């Protein structure tokens, strides 16, 4: 294995101390990031439980709603359905708050969808079919589920992005930064020992030359 070191560092005691501090910091950061990653993955699993099957559920209810809508269109005609749709009152209101999971800001949606009675919907009865009522009911239900699904999917998406970033950082520290620092520390230590021995030999030689002269 190639022992990679950080280049351009002088083998001095000051640098050695600095590097040792950096190594300590890197190890600490690595363990913290690892904890963060584990916590994020745990959160991720919690949310995965919620997403299970909810997309299928939404798709099924939407399909039913579309079927009813088509039936209504067949009975009343496209234009009449559109006309009725125009007179339906706005009833979907959402309140978006945010929550922080290990520093990841995720949305929390509070949807206020009033369940409406026939009269509240706002279209006339004389020229509408009962199928339209059914379609309206299904769509109201579907919208609620769609918004819930959106919240969950967005949360998963954001968490996944954060997990990936954290993973990358953990790996970079573990496999590149920390070994590099360790190797550099080792090489500087070796270099310093070598220098010590050199000086020792020089001193010995000087001593012997002085002794032989006197």
């Amino acid at each position, binding site marked *: 294995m190639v022992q990679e070191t950080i280049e351009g560092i002088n083998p001095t005691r000051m640098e050695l101390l600095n590097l040792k501090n950096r190594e300590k910091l890197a190890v600490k950061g690595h363990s913290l990031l690892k904890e963060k990653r584990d916590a994020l993955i745990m959160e991720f699993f919690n949310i995965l439980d919620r997403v299970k099957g909810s997309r299928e559920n939404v798709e099924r209810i*939407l399909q039913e709603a579309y079927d009813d809508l088509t039936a209504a269109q067949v009975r009343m005609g496209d234009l009449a359905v559109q006309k009725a749709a125009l007179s*339906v009152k*706005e009833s979907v209101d*959402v309140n*978006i708050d945010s929550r922080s999971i290990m520093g990841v800001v995720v949305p929390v*949606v509070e949807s206020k969808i009033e369940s409406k009675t026939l009269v509240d*919907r706002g279209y006339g009865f004389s020229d509408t079919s009962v199928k339209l009522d059914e379609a309206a009911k299904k769509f109201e239900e579907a*919208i609620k589920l769609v918004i819930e699904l959106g919240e969950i999917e967005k949360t998963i998406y954001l968490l996944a992005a954060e997990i990936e970033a954290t993973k990358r950082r953990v790996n970079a520290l573990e496999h590149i930064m920390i070994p590099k620092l360790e190797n550099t520390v080792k090489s500087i230590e070796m270099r310093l020992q070598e220098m010590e021995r050199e000086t020792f030999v020089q001193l010995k030689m000087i001593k012997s030359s002085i002794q032989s002269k006197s």
Partner: protein
Amino acid sequence: MSSVAVIGDIDTVTGFKIGGVKKGFIVEKDEDAKNALNELIETDISIIIITEKIADNIREHINKKIGSDVLPMIIEIPDKFGSSDRDVDPMGELIKRVIGVEMVK
């Protein structure tokens, strides 16, 4: 308090209007969908419901506009012809990439 908007074909928008979402954009061309999306992002709409087919067509545009922002939330739904057949389920793919193994389904 903010509200919800729909971008989709005429039937989807009509359906959601009956359900109580009044802001609907009926789009047929990709260009219209992009414009509608831009307009919605500028206002304080926080949830945009869009049909999968349109979303697939303007995927790059959506990614560029939204990126990893929290709001607005874009929710993709199938239109009345059912969900588009995708080669990969994006959510499943994402989970697989993050966890390393297939978890759901």
